[in-house]
């Protein structure tokens, strides 16, 4: 059996499994309340919570980019391991406190926290706009990745457009049926597939003919710039990226909602305690696989970010039948990774629109069950618009995706200071947020990403914190 036919058959089985899970999850749901639909009733156990956090945080982009960047830029890309670990460390700075409040006050969305803590509608609105912009871009990126990956791994048998439309329909179907329950369980399957595929493949590849020592020695001789200590400016960029992505990705709305959805503190502790090791069993393995791939691309000047892993999987799958199984798991896992990130983003996006924007304004008096139905309708509308957008890539706002983390990090003080500084009020938060966003957006429009190697988003965040703390202290007196 060739890898391609095994992949196509596995994708078919996986899609069927997703739909069955959706139906099963819809029967498990007790009611049509917002909490049941968007937070699985707030009862996720540690195993499900860990894998849904994992699947949501690790998109196919992460999986594809790491080996490709190692091949293109060299060992300095170990920086990705740093920021994926930093994300979990930053959870520890606010998750314990946020969890307690969220259970007591029955939060559904990040906006519920902003409302509860700051009681300033303008601030909640601005923060929600930032979260919506980030989520829409994230979702669009996942849809486009779905199309590209489906086309790539089936050798064009599933064209880009069919990949986008078909997979988007599957996602919206199981999500509408089962809400967070379905999303979390599909994440479990995806997470397990990725971990087993990656781990199994690594064991086989590391025992193969090419050794890391050989590659390092070859690099020292032929491409020393890829193995040498990165330059001073790159190290500044490295440190600022770890801080910016570490903080920013910790406050993705879909992640915040997973904290709310935890069944208990014990569950949250167990999940985060395990989650902090996930970069080591995912990013580090991908990094080492990237090093082992370098000789295969020795002649190429630059390799496309989605080219290295699929090509290497094809090569590695020929080692043995077991290697083929792991490689197929990895390939289907890549597709599943885009879907699991897309479903989580879509779910949190629709909850923000239904609960925060409609439920707190024009639909204040609408019963909760109806708001859930409206939320589902919002999901369909958002998905349809995003599919149309993704089918015409020439008019996409790809550039905005780069803006994502630069603006998302500006939300961090609303959690960090909001939970730890009593004097930090809505005025201080709004002023800080506006200042941070101003810096990030100005940089975006002028095409400036870094100053002296420092990520502009982090500079904006610094200003955001200074203004927030300064105003909070002045008003606190």
């Amino acid at each position: 059996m060739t890898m391609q036919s095994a992949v196509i058959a596995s994708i078919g089985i996986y899609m069927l499994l997703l739909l069955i899970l959706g139906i099963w999850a819809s029967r498990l749901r007790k009611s049509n309340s917002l909490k049941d639909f968007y937070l699985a009733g707030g009862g996720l156990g540690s195993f499900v919570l860990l894998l849904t956090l994992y699947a949501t945080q690790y998109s196919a982009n992460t999986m594809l980019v790491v080996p490709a960047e190692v091949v293109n830029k060299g060992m300095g890309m170990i920086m990705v391991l740093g920021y994926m670990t930093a994300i979990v460390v930053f959870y520890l700075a606010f998750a314990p406190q946020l969890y307690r409040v969220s259970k007591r006050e029955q939060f559904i969305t990040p906006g519920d926290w902003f409302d509860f803590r700051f009681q300033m509608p303008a601030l909640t609105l601005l923060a929600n706009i930032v979260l919506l912009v980030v989520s829409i871009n994230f979702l669009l990126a996942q849809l486009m990745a779905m199309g590209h990956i489906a086309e790539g791994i089936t050798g064009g048998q599933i064209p880009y457009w069919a990949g986008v439309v078909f997979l988007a329909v599957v996602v919206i179907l199981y999500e509408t049926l089962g809400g967070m329950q379905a999303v979390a369980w599909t994440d479990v399957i995806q997470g397990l597939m990725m971990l087993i595929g990656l781990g199994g493949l690594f064991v086989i590849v590391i025992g193969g003919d090419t050794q890391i020592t050989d590659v390092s020695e070859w690099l020292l001789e032929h491409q020393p710039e890829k193995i040498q200590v990165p330059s001073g400016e790159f190290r500044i960029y490295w440190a600022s990226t770890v801080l910016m992505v570490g903080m920013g990705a910790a406050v993705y709305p879909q992640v915040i909602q997973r904290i709310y959805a935890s069944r208990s503190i014990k569950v949250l502790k167990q999940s985060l305690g395990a989650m902090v090791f996930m970069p080591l069993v995912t990013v580090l393995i991908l990094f080492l696989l990237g090093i082992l791939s370098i000789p295969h691309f020795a002649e190429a000047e630059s390799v496309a970010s989605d080219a290295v892993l699929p090509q290497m999987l094809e090569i590695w799958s020929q080692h043995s039948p077991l290697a083929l199984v792991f490689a197929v798991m990895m390939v289907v896992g890549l597709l599943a990774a885009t879907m699991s990130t897309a479903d989580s983003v879509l779910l949190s996006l629709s909850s923000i629109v239904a609960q925060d924007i409609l439920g707190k304004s024009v639909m204040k008096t609408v019963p909760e069950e109806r708001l859930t139905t409206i939320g589902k309708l919002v999901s369909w509308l958002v998905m349809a618009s995003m599919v149309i957008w993704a089918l015409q890539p020439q008019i996409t706002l790809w550039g905005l995706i780069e803006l994502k983390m630069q603006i998302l990090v500006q939300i961090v003080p609303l959690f960090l200071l909001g939970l730890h500084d009593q004097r930090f009020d809505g005025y201080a938060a709004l002023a800080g947020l506006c200042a941070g966003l101003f810096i990030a957006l100005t940089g975006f429009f002028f095409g400036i990403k870094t100053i002296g190697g420092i990520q502009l988003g982090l500079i904006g965040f610094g200003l955001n914190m200074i203004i927030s703390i300064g105003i909070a202290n002045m008003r606190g007196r």
Partner: protein
Amino acid sequence: MKTFPSWVWLVFASLFALSIPWYLPPDLSMMLVAGLPLWLLSCILAIVGMAFFSLLIIRIYWEEEDEEVIHPQQQVE
């Protein structure tokens, strides 16, 4: 209410500083250990340290005493 004592963040900051390769002399940096240059290995070790330290403080300092009681019917697993 603080969950973790302040010194914990100093340890994280130190491990973060150790995870960026700026402190090893050039000759030592490029020494290959287990096939990887020492500068890279020290970055990885600092991150491994960060992971184990996180697990340790979660176990020691994150208390569960004010646990909210949730009705068993709400449990998923």
